[in-house]
């Protein structure tokens, strides 16, 4: 694992991606402290100001500081996808290990259900489900976890299945080891490389989906500064305040490119291409 990290950081593009992601993580943690203004503060007489020393990213249509809003917004766009990734990896790994190890009809049934779930376009289902549970941070996390767990489960299942017949797993069975021990001590370490790559991919897509939902108005509700929503709002007033669109859009681009560079590095170091979707 240590050598894997060293290999990763030796690749310039990966290092670049890692630095970008680290900066955004810092923004998510400390952003609200650095932000010069509260995200919802209407600054009197400062509407539609272009970027300047006072307002780094300018101000929007109704006089809020875009820089502050982007900083505040970093928190949701990073923590929600992180949480979704963590939860889908947790559930997906458990399901995947279990069915991959047992095989047989349990695997057959669960796998078919996972296949079916995977054949549903994510965004369409997310919209309907979010409408049902309400567009709250909890709702977004819940919906994306439901959508991504099957993907992770399928990856882990495939990896577990390939290890199931190994001598050391069979030796453990012959000793009468508990299933829990076999799954988590004997199989899990072998699945880890695939899992790390998959987690990075899922993180990237969770950001994508969260931002898209925000843009469509199903993200974190106003006046919270959601990057997707900010882009959508700025769209109507683009000719007057183009910077209110460019900065949050740029932040999304930069974050996703950073995560992608990082996950591409992981993919190459662990020699695992990852799943589509």
């Amino acid at each position, binding site marked *: 694992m240590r050598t894997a990290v060293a290999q990763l950081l030796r690749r310039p593009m990966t290092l670049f991606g890692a630095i970008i992601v680290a900066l955004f993580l810092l923004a998510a943690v400390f952003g609200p402290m650095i932000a010069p203004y509260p995200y919802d503060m209407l600054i009197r007489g400062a509407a539609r100001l272009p970027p300047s020393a006072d307002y780094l990213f300018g101000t929007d249509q109704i006089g809020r500081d875009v820089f502050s809003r982007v900083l505040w917004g970093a928190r949701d766009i990073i923590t929600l996808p992180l949480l979704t990734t963590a939860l889908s990896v947790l559930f997906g790994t458990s399901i995947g290990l279990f069915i991959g190890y047992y095989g047989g009809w349990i695997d057959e049934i669960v796998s078919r259900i996972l296949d079916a779930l995977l054949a549903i376009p994510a965004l369409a289902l997310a919209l309907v489900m979010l409408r049902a549970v309400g567009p709250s941070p909890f709702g977004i996390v819940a919906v994306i976890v439901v959508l991504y767990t099957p993907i992770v489960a399928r990856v882990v299942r495939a990896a577990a299945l390939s290890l199931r017949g190994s001598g050391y797993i*069979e030796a453990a069975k012959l000793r009468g080891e508990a299933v829990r021990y076999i799954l988590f001590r004997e199989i899990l370490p072998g699945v880890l490389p695939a899992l790390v790559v998959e987690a990075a991919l899922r993180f990237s897509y969770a950001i994508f989906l969260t931002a898209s939902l925000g843009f469509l108005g199903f993200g974190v509700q106003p006046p919270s500064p959601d990057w997707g929503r900010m882009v959508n709002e700025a769209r109507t007033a683009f000719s007057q305040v183009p910077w209110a669109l460019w900065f949050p859009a740029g932040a999304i681009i930069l974050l996703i490119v950073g995560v992608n560079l990082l996950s591409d590095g992981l993919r190459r170091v662990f020699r695992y291409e990852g799943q589509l979707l």
Partner: protein
Amino acid sequence: MITPVVQVEDFNLEYRLGKRWLNVLRDVSFAIMPDEIHGLVGESGSGKSTLALAIMNSFTPNARVAGGRVRFEGEDLLDRTPAEMRSIWGKRMSLVPQDALAALNPSHTVGDQIGEITRLHEGLSRRESLRRAEEMLRRVRISDPETVMRRYPHQLSGGMQQRVTIAMALSTSPRLLILDEPTTALDVTTQAVIVDLFRDLIHDTHAAALYVSHDLGLVAQLCDRVTVLYGGEVMACAPAADLYGRPLHPYTISLLASLPRRTEGAETRLPTIEGVAPALADRPAGCVFAARCPAALEQCRREKPPLEVIAGDRLIKCWRWREIASGALIIDTSPQQGAGDAPPRDGYVLTAQAMFKAFDPPTLVDRLLMTGRRPLRAVDDASLRVRARSTLGLVGESGSGKTTLARLIVGLETADAGALELLDMPLDLRLNRRPRSALRELQMVFQNPNDALNPYLSVGEQLGRAVRWLSDERLSRDTVRERVRALLSAVRLPETFAERYPVELSGGEKQRVAIARAFAADPALVVADEPTSALDVSVQSVILNLLKDLRALKGASYLLISHNLDAVAFLADWIVVMYLGEIVEQGSVAQVYSAPSHPYTEALISAIPVADPAAQRKHIRLEGELPSPRDLPTGCRFHTRCPRKIGAICEHDAPPIREAGDGHYIRCHIPIEDLTRLQVEDPAAHVSEAG
């Protein structure tokens, strides 16, 4: 003077590893003459396949030539570009690859792939090329070439796939054939047929051939001259009769001596070559074999011996060959005496009664579609008993059900029917219903050492886990450590190995750790599934000796599964032979090896290649394909391939089990006396497929 087809002179090849260039082949020289089948033997890592491809001027991207020449019919090949090679590849020299299925394109038909080569080099039209392909298939003795032409590679059996690759290689009548372990993936009986085919075809076409193999026996049976490669260097090169009859190199001598064979007496151990072959990254400055050589001197370790030409047609690379040739130095290859062995005891450790297992039953879909798919009957009504402190060898080819039967016994698969008894106590067929006391007594050693150990846990952790888990009381950390140390020393590994991870071990070392793990709780029965088949020849004997020693030391019994009757015969007291899920013969080693025996056993023994070009053996070949276990033949399951089939009765009636002696049973329609007479009367007769 005749020009050699291939002449390799002082050839050096390097691979790049990180920033370093490592020597893969050093100062290799030898020649292949017209009409000659030249054997190239070596263990894994010796560079034999690399050398074979180098002769074709084909290299991996990380390789570079670091000196020397390769001449093909007098022309220097190494300075030719791949584009220039295109008129030679496939036309004047062809490759028969190791893994035929992988070497054929999965999405083109067999006919197209064979035809492609004559279309390219002889400018034949599509139709002509296909006709030629069909003719070639007939020449490799495929009985219905019209059908096979239209098949895709995956639809053919392993033996048929290999015939296709040889048909492809021969269709332009090349001057040189390179055969890279072409039968390694095949069963012995199929291998015997294919090797006969190679011999005939190569001699018919007057091509020269380089036959690469790790199997000393096979090379002895097929080749005129043999080159022995070790650690990237030529150790010896000689006519086959000399190399096997009067070996001069300590490596060749020890290697030949270490081949497993039948031994009388349980105390004997095989002579072994200690240690492991040097890794690519740390090959010694002196003789590459010095570290493992029983006759190595200080000079050998310091200085590389030259490759000398002796007696006009032999090459040898050893400082001491003169002493060996004159008889002044004798490499000790007398069988070692083991730790003694307690004779088998009365009573049985394990009894398996009427075991039955079918895989892959028809699914709902099959029933709805009425596909007529039948379950695969892997093990059918098989019974066996293992005596206390003895070894039962379970022999058969792939698809015989031997591995499945073993897995039913240890519980990795659950039998559909049958009964098991371990140490006179009933043993549940399901693994998860067996108490710890039973689990402890029944352990297994697996075939592939590379996945036998968890790559993420140290050797000590894995052995410790087995020791602790299988013990009834809670063991202190010190006790566990002590027992792990004892286990490592029992398999002759230094105790520092406890700290190592599997990736740091060689194949043989991994297998020793796996054996140690099986012995963690002093089991009564250890099931060993092909424990040496994935290992190099020089390491196999070490493992076989170790198993024999452990049996003496720990008083365990073995159920030893193998496709190699000779390896089984070294260790086993009794042998069970399986064919298509059924036991066809069982008896003591002596009984099974001598007449009368089941016609299948007879063919199996005859197919084993002996490492002696002068050996006289019965020549029995099984033609035809192994039937699918989904669609078993009626009557006797062996009748479709049996060279001694007596008539319609074999096709219609299941054969009786006849007793041929004390504890010796044969499942055959032929009465015992007739069987004995047939098999004794004409021992060297050429018996081919009946009908």
